[in-house]
């Protein structure tokens, strides 16, 4: 679901085909029939943006038929835990959870807590901005106590236990409701339910695959939560053949989250400190609480070791290991917020590192206007991309919005070294680090990012040398003495420091258990600790698959600690025996007193299944022998998230920000906490209950093609790829073609309140209209790879989308919007602006359109607009 694996991950898809050849049933649920659908046993067409309604229907099917894997659910999830009496569900509040504050469009989550935990009331907006999950690491939010103190009902009958709350929450997600919302005929929906449940349990497991078809929504994080709930109810997590696969789209996008270039994270999913963290102790307290279970309990060791790697000798116990050197966040500093700040003149310089936002980010026009309002821009890429040449070939040149002679942005283009011209690791989509050896030297001015940033750091340090200004201390004290080969820094040495070094012996540590909070270890990323165990680059291991077992432990290195299946303790029952012989993965070996199996156990090796922690224990010591989810604060997988999400503890169907229909489940139309930026340069199409949605009657969604790569910088310049998909096209069903008079291969243009985009028409049976409640909904689809540069050009499809974001992770909703489509080409030049303005006028669009995010309860509600970047005194 939300993934087109055969097209976007073709080589990974060989394993799906392998499974299919062995009898697995493959189901593809997607708005259109793709190359993945062509090879699936079943394709289900659903309306873009309604996946939670579909998944909620599956959850309801499981619970109302008693098809959950009950022993698994009882042992490994928080199903038995009781919730606070103050909790109110969306079923009680017309689509809102308890704690909603319309003024700030955010929740006070205190009423979502477990019964035994008393969480103080917190102001809503503070919660949204400063306790947002993007400020938590992957371990998620902390709990104030371990599982030991949480009231629970192992019979799962108590009306306030998670299991019953879940049941009630999804009770109205019936096959009929799924049909009305998603446009999926109920019999087809029920076939999916049957296939999913019949292929789960002790003897069988089912896997779930998603990609950005799930994440790029204003409720994106909750899509994944909904999928997780199903997989947990059916016992498909931590078991062979099960799991949830997030197929990521870039060679090291997993790595760039693990070792983040993200504003809210430090390496290893440690949160970036915010303004409430006065010192290291306060920061650590926000990550872990006394009595809390799990490996986040050792966050002090991870953090201090990171600070020691950053600031070396300068970081001492006396100065809090230079914790104070870290900059503080106090809100949303995500890429879209920053783009708007550029337009508003608050940002002066911008680095683009192998990234082409002029094509690849939502609302390309906003991106380009932002770049045109900088002092300087540095672009590093293999080839010339639109983001480097916006000052001469942006669509805004044609419309007169950017005039080269009046655009002051100074642009530096640095040619980059390619993947064969440098060595280093990528982390692939299943958390495996694989080392690349350098094959050849780059030529001319081509350099690696490692070279660029190492030398930029060196130059900056030189220029600041001798400064007495306190703000320059973090730069001057920065440990920047990596080994070099010629003038190229050694990636191997950097990886060694990422792994971590015992400063007493000077040798690499073997894993994160070897990290200490007393300043005697330095480690750049605790979850990568072990990648350089025994002073060996483990990511460089390439023992041929022919010589290894089924889990190929000696190929590359997977974090954490080379464990291939996360939470694989759950593949065994609470007593440590595999749930079935057929699905054995790891198990407790009584004789040897340790966990063993085909994979490396994701559990303390010698902790027996029956272990019960002593009173008052915390961290790893507080984990019982059957607490399979060792990173969670209560050792359990969360069906219900008592904290950590800003838009609710359970997934709820909300319509996309731009939708042709009213939410059939609740008065609350869209995600009540979604990030809307009501600005004249970021208009929204109206959606019910707002009027004039009929001006944009169709649903538009976008995706990739096999033959191209994202924004095209690595494909549109290559003849062998360009010839395979030479031009932008828009796919429409024969029914929509007839309705709009569109002809195969003729031109058409797609219009939103942002712009209009030209594309050649492809009429295909692969798209079909859907019946949604009392009307027929048409969906159109475009690939988004093109721009003005390259061997093959086309309009920028992402220009169609505005910026509206998921409040948890600040990812934009670019997988669904509404649009119109008309035959013929769009107007050119300034006439385009007039044309789009006329559409906005007809739809009555103002900056406020789409900002009345609260629609529950019926009465007219005030608009909510995200505040500007948090203000501060200079």
């Amino acid at each position: 679901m939300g993934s087109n694996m055969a097209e976007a991950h073709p080589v990974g898809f060989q394993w799906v085909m392998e499974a299919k050849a062995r009898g697995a049933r493959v189901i593809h649920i997607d708005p259109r029939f793709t190359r993945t659908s062509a090879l699936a046993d079943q394709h289900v067409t659903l309306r873009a943006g309604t996946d939670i309604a579909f998944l909620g229907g599956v959850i309801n099917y499981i619970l109302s038929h008693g098809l959950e894997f009950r022993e698994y659910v009882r042992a490994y999830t928080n199903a038995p835990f009781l919730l606070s009496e103050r909790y109110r569900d969306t079923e009680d509040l017309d689509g809102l959870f308890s704690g909603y504050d319309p003024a700030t469009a955010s929740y006070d989550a205190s009423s979502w807590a477990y019964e035994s935990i008393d969480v103080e009331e917190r102001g809503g907006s503070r919660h949204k901005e400063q306790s947002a999950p993007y400020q938590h690491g992957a371990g998620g939010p902390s709990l104030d106590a371990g599982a030991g103190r949480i009231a629970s009902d192992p019979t799962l009958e108590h009306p306030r236990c998670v299991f019953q709350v879940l049941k009630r929450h999804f009770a109205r997600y019936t096959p009929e409701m799924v049909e009305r919302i998603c446009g999926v005929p109920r019999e087809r929906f029920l076939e999916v339910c049957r296939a999913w449940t019949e292929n789960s349990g002790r003897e069988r497991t089912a896997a779930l695959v998603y990609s950005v078809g799930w994440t790029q929504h204003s409720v994106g994080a909750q899509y994944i939560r909904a999928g997780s709930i199903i997989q947990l109810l059916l016992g498909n997590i931590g078991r062979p053949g099960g799991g949830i696969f997030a197929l990521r789209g870039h060679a090291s996008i997993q790595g760039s989250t693990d070792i983040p270039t993200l504003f809210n994270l430090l390496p290893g999913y440690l949160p970036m400190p915010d303004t409430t963290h006065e010192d290291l102790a306060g920061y650590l307290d926000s990550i872990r609480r006394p009595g809390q279970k799990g490996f986040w309990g050792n966050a002090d060791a991870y953090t201090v070791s990171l600070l020691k790697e950053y600031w070396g000798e300068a970081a001492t116990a006396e100065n809090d290991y230079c914790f104070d050197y870290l900059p503080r966040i106090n809100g949303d500093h995500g890429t879209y917020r920053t783009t708007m700040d550029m337009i508003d003149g608050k940002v002066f310089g911008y680095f683009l590192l192998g990234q082409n936002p002029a094509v690849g980010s939502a609302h390309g026009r906003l991106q380009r206007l932002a770049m045109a309002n900088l002092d300087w821009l540095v672009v590093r890429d293999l080839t010339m991309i639109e983001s480097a040449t916006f000052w001469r070939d942006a669509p805004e040149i044609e419309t007169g919005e950017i005039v080269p002679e009046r655009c002051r942005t100074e642009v530096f283009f640095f040619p980059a070294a390619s993947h064969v011209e440098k060595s280093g690791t990528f982390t692939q989509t299943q958390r495996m680090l694989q080392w690349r050896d350098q094959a050849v030297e780059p030529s001319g001015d081509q350099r690696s990012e490692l070279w660029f940033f190492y030398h930029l750091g060196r130059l900056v340090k030189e220029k600041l040398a001798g400064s007495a200004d306190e703000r320059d201390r973090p730069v001057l004290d920065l440990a920047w003495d990596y080994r070099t080969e010629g003038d190229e820094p050694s990636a191997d040495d950097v990886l060694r420091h990422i792994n971590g070094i015992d400063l007493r012996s000077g040798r690499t540590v073997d894993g994160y258990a070897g990290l200490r909070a007393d300043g005697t270890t330095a480690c750049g990323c605790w979850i990568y600790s072990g990648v350089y165990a025994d002073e060996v680059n483990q990511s460089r291991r390439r023992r041929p698959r022919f010589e290894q077992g089924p889990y190929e432990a000696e190929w590359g290195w997977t974090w954490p600690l080379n464990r291939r299946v996360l939470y694989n303790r759950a593949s065994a029952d609470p007593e440590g025996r595999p749930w079935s012989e057929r699905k054995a993965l790891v198990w407790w070996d009584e004789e040897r007193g340790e966990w063993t199996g085909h994979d490396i156990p994701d559990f303390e090796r010698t902790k027996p299944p029956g272990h019960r922690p002593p009173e008052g224990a915390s961290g790893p010591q507080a984990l019982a022998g059957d607490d399979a989810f060792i990173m969670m604060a209560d050792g359990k997988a969360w069906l219900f998230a008592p904290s950590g999400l800003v838009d609710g503890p359970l997934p709820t169907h909300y319509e996309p920000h731009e939708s042709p229909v009213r939410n059939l489940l609740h008065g609350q139309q869209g995600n009540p906490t979604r990030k809307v930026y009501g600005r004249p340069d970021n208009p929204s199409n109206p959606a019910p209950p707002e009027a004039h949605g009929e001006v944009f009657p169709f649903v538009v969604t976008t995706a990739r093609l096999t033959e191209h790569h994202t924004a095209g910088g690595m494909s549109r310049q290559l003849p062998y790829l360009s010839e395979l998909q030479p031009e932008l096209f828009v796919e429409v069903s024969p029914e929509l073609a007839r309705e709009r008079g569109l002809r195969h291969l003729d031109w058409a243009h797609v219009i939103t309140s942002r712009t209009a985009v030209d594309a050649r028409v492809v009429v295909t049976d692969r798209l079909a209209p859907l019946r949604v409640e009392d009307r027929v909904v048409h969906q159109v689809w475009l690939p988004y790879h093109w721009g003005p540069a390259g061997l093959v050009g086309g309009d920028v499809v992402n220009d169609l989308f505005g910026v509206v974001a998921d409040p948890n992770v600040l990812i934009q909703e670019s997988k669904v919007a509404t649009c119109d489509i008309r035959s013929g080409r769009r107007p050119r030049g300034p006439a385009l602006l007039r044309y789009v303005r006329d559409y906005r006028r007809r739809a009555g669009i103002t900056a406020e359109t789409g900002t009345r995010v609260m629609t529950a309860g019926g009465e007219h509600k005030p608009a909510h607009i995200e505040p500007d970047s948090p203000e501060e005194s200079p």
Partner: protein
Amino acid sequence: MSLERWIGAWPVYRQLTGADRLGRGKAAESRRSAGLTPRTDTADRVVASVCPYCAVGCSQRVYVKGERVIQIEGNPDSPISRGRLCPKGSASKQLVTGPQREQKVLYRPPYGTAWQELDLNTAMDMVADRVLDARRRGWQDTDSAGNTLRRTMGIASLGGATLDNEENYLIKKLFTALGALQIENQARI
């Protein structure tokens, strides 16, 4: 070449004397064909790499001859990809050796209408100056309540999803030390 070999190389002679009487096989083999071997056989070295496109992480073998890449193909040893590559992975040689690769630092001055060439070291120095200037202008010590911010809002960055972990590590580390925190990535998109 001896007369005997010269005559022996004549296809008609071979056709008349060999088993290929219709001249459609062995007798028709040209000198080029006779000496044909895979160009990878002549590689100076074979280097293990990983495909730079999507996140499946297919293994590649890079064949290098005379310090140039002469072929990139899948590595059958890999348990992930078993030697296979998709069209993008298969186009990797074109990606790294094609004429679309930029070789020179280019500079567009404010209000300029064309690129200019710039020396790499000069460009680095200019960027370092601009980083420090933007950092200073966007600096914030505290918020209005007096809480520590210790940051600059003058610098932003986006990218890194096709960069190495080691590179992202240095990027984050340097920017963090500079107080720049609007450091973002494709992972947000």
